């Protein structure tokens, strides 16, 4: 069990609800993942399109904690307004804060992100900022009152995994009291496991499951990988070393000769 924003959870897997081929597959994937938190969004609804209401009804039936996002926002003011709208609809003060600075790699605009985070914390939101792996930006967000950060592994939907493990290790080491959840860029369970072995508190992903050939099976695979990675972190991995060190003691084994090293 672990605590995320005052909520006790058993799963460290947060799952998105987008890109599934059907709502039925989405529901089955969420169930297979064991996720207790799912991300949602808001869109401008045209009067003749009632698909949003269908999705909302299905989601409510799952009784999960919702984490709305501010996708599509480029300025702090837009993100703040959308967050307030999300709070009213989804009845939660949790908000995944996305303020995008570039349309190609969807990386956050760090200046607008900090500005929005400060305002939203003051308005009583629990802010989950989607950020980069930049340590100084992370510190600024923590200074604003964010107790959770969501650094990217690589661009959203890219599936490239941890492009800068060193930077992510730095964040973990330098911010031991901050909840760190990898968000964006995870494509394979091994990548999620790698992040968890670094000591990250959780993984948020969407495309890696929704766009898999078999999303429900992939959700299960990620569930197991995230669990394994956490167990490995808690168990403490052996240190890496450059020289070989035999697992079997070679002294007195047949044919072993202690040769002088060249």
């Amino acid at each position, binding site marked *: 069990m672990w605590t995320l924003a005052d909520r006790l959870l058993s799963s460290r897997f947060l799952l998105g609800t987008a*890109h599934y081929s059907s709502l039925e597959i989405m529901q089955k994937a969420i169930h297979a993942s064991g996720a207790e938190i799912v991300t949602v969004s*808001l869109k401008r609804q045209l009067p003749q399109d*009632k698909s949003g*209401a269908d999705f909302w009804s299905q989601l409510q039936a799952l009784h999960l904690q919702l984490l709305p996002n501010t996708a599509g926002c480029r300025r702090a003011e837009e993100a703040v*307004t959308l967050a307030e709208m999300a709070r009213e*609809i989804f009845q939660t003060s949790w908000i995944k804060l996305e303020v995008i600075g570039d349309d190609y790699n969807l990386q956050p605009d760090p200046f607008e992100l900090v500005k929005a985070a400060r305002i939203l914390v003051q308005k009583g939101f629990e802010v989950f900022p989607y950020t980069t792996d930049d340590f100084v930006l992370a510190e600024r967000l923590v200074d604003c009152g964010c107790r959770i950060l969501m650094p990217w592994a690589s661009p959203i939907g890219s599936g490239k995994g941890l492009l800068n493990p060193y930077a992510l290790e730095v964040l973990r080491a330098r911010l031991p009291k901050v909840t760190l959840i990898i968000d964006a860029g995870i494509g394979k369970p091994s990548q999620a496991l790698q992040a968890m072995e670094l000591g990250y508190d959780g993984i948020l992903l969407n495309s890696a499951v929704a766009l898999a050939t078999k999303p429900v099976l992939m959700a299960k695979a990620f569930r197991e990988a995230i669990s394994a990675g956490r167990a490995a972190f808690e168990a403490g991995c052996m240190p890496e070393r450059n020289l070989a060190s035999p697992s079997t003691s070679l002294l007195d084994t047949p044919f072993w000769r202690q040769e002088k090293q060249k």
Partner: protein
Amino acid sequence: MIKLTLNQQAFSVKEGSDLLALLQSRLGPELVPFCAVAVNRRFVPRERYQQIILEEGDAVDLVLPMQGG
């Protein structure tokens, strides 16, 4: 009649119309509880819908839940 925009589309309503009436006419009363609204980029809480009298040039943004990552 006054002209405004609803989700960036041109729209006309009777002068003196309130926001709740607009939403009920465009969405239907059953969907109003599922939506959230901003007028001129400012969030309007649900309890104030009837108090907001729409004016010429207002920009109304109406959102509903959708899937997201």
